[in-house]
């Protein structure tokens, strides 16, 4: 599904390398988790994959189902099936949640040559999915994320994901700032989407989330690279011992 090969990224404005040869392969139907200390480049990876400005790719590639993501506009990547649940979703005063989501759903459908959803069908679908995520339908009438709590923003990101039905889902610390109940709701939302044709890349600091969303593979990222990959046990190890040992191990190799 997603093949990242030796990806090098620096900041556009400064000579600061952030991703330094990152390689990662995510197969359809699997869930990969990425853990790693703050500042190791996890969000940068998510942003670069989704096409945010401000970064310069200095080497490597990132293919989504055989298509080079790095050559596409952000909206093309979305239409190709990529989705990023933001670590820090932005507030956009004046743009209604519903209007925006409907525009997005229909833009993607159009880009894929599918028929646009009527407003009736769209409303019905959003209401049903919002209910599952315990999102107040009234809230959706408000401008994007204005007056939303941290947890509400994250749940709404999952609602968008559910509506857009992407094939490659990246969740950047979606669990941060969620209480136990909200985390359960979000995890259920994610698990409901798991199927053979879809893959997930879950960036998190906490084993907690991985109790709900069982990963197939766990990666540890540091200094802009994957330094270790393993099974779900690797997450437990990090939870117990922190990153220190892993980083030291990596240091010896270098």
């Amino acid at each position, binding site marked *: 599904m997603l093949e990242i090969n030796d990806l090098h990224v620096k900041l556009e404005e400064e000579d600061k390398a952030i991703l330094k040869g990152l390689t990662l392969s995510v197969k359809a139907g699997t869930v990969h988790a990425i853990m790693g200390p703050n500042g190791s480049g996890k969000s940068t990876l998510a942003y670069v994959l989704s096409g945010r400005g401000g970064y310069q790719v200095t080497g490597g590639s990132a293919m989504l189902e055989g298509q080079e993501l790095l050559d596409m506009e*952000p909206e093309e990547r979305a239409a190709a099936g990529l989705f990023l649940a933001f670590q820090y979703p932005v507030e956009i005063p004046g743009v209604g949640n519903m209007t925006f989501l409907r525009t997005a759903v229909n833009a993607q459908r159009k880009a894929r040559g599918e028929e646009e959803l009527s407003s009736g069908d769209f409303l019905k679908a959003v209401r049903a999915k919002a209910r599952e995520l315990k999102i107040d339908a009234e809230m959706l009438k408000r401008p994007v994320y204005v007056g939303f709590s941290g947890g509400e923003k994250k749940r709404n990101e999952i609602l968008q994901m559910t509506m857009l039905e992407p094939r490659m889902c990246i969740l950047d610390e979606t669990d941060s700032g969620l209480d136990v109940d909200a985390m359960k709701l979000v995890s259920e939302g994610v698990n409901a989407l798991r199927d053979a044709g879809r893959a997930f890349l879950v960036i998190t600091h906490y084993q907690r989330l991985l109790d709900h969303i069982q990963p197939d593979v766990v990666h540890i990222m540091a200094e802009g690279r994957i330094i270790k990959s393993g099974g779900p046990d690797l997450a437990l190890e990090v939870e117990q011992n922190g990153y220190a040992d892993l980083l030291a191990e990596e240091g010896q190799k270098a």
Partner: protein
Amino acid sequence: MSGAPKPMTRAARRAARLDATAAHLSRLSVPQDSGWLGRARADALERLRTLGLPERRDEYWRFTDPSVLSAETAAPAEVFRITDEPVVFSDIDRLRIVFTDGEFDQQASDDLTAEGLEVTRLAEAAQADIHWAQDVYGKLEERGQQPVPRPLATLNSAMARDGVLIRATGKVARPVSLIYRRQKEAADMVLHHVIRVEPGAEMTLLENGPAAARYSIVTEACIGAGGMLHHVRTQGRDHARSGITHLFVRMDKAAGLKSFTLSANGRVLRNEAMIWLDGEGGSAHVAGAAMGDGDFHHDDTVFIDHAAPRCESRQVFKKVLRNGAVGVFQGKILVQRPAQLTDGYQISQSLLMDERSQFLAKPELEIYADDVKCSHGSTSGEIDADHLFYLRSRGVPEAEGKNLLVLAFLTEALEEIARDDLAEDVRSRLESWLGRHRH
């Protein structure tokens, strides 16, 4: 011996201005009326001879060149016909009053009798010895010469060829719609309207249409105690035109005003509003959304005078500028000593779509009362890159994402339109404008 020309003294400059004005006036053919209108015109001419016409170096015209507006004749401009969308307000049930090339067009207009309204054409009212409008025509304009002269309004009082006088005596739901049609390339339209909303009465005034190659519209309105005037106008799309409008409004106790203007393109366009909150508890909102593309120059100049306690005023002006368009805002809130507990708000913002476009703003507060709440702000910004990226990351194409953000930017101004159907109509104009680019 000849050296560098001596700089003119103030007095000499004033004398030169008045001479030029007198010469200008002598070449105009002032409409001849007997009775009260004739007297009002004569008074206006007299005023104009002492005010003089505006000049570029006047502080009040610092950002906008008045020469096109005050020139003796209007440069012809191509007649613009809208064929790609229904004309604004067409779906609204309204009393239509049509002016074609600046003249009342009876055939195209509805019957002017309506419940709760008294509508008279200016030319007809002038025949009457006594008419309620004689206490207003030219009078508010005259009051509006302080603290800054507005001679183009005075010129209008003298020269207006037509106009409509409307008195609202009850709560009237059906809007009165002034439609400015245009046929001649050189049409130079000068209209003067007078409105009186009696105590407790309410009405809605709409204005739209390509109007003329050049136009000057003065509207003088008095809103009685507890009365309400809604005003929504669009100045659209025909790019070659130039124009100036003056809205003078005197408000009594607990009177309300909501005025909104949508301007899309226009070579030189200045909208002036002068509002007097004379009675306690009045509320005046003046708002505008302007969208300029290319050689567009749009100026909103607003003055709100709080003379009585417990009044509220709100100015919300938003401009979207691209391809070198220029937006101007001059807005002032004056709070006089008796106007305690004033709540004044003023915001003027521009969204610059490129580096060539510019926004010039002069927000002012002048406060003499001590217990007031006043705020003002003026900003110039671009589309927020993080916002745009967020929208695009969900699959919204860049152009569509920008449009959503432009509409979002204008929302605060649009919210000043009280009626949903009118707001929706205006919003759809904005949307179609966003889909069109002149370059």
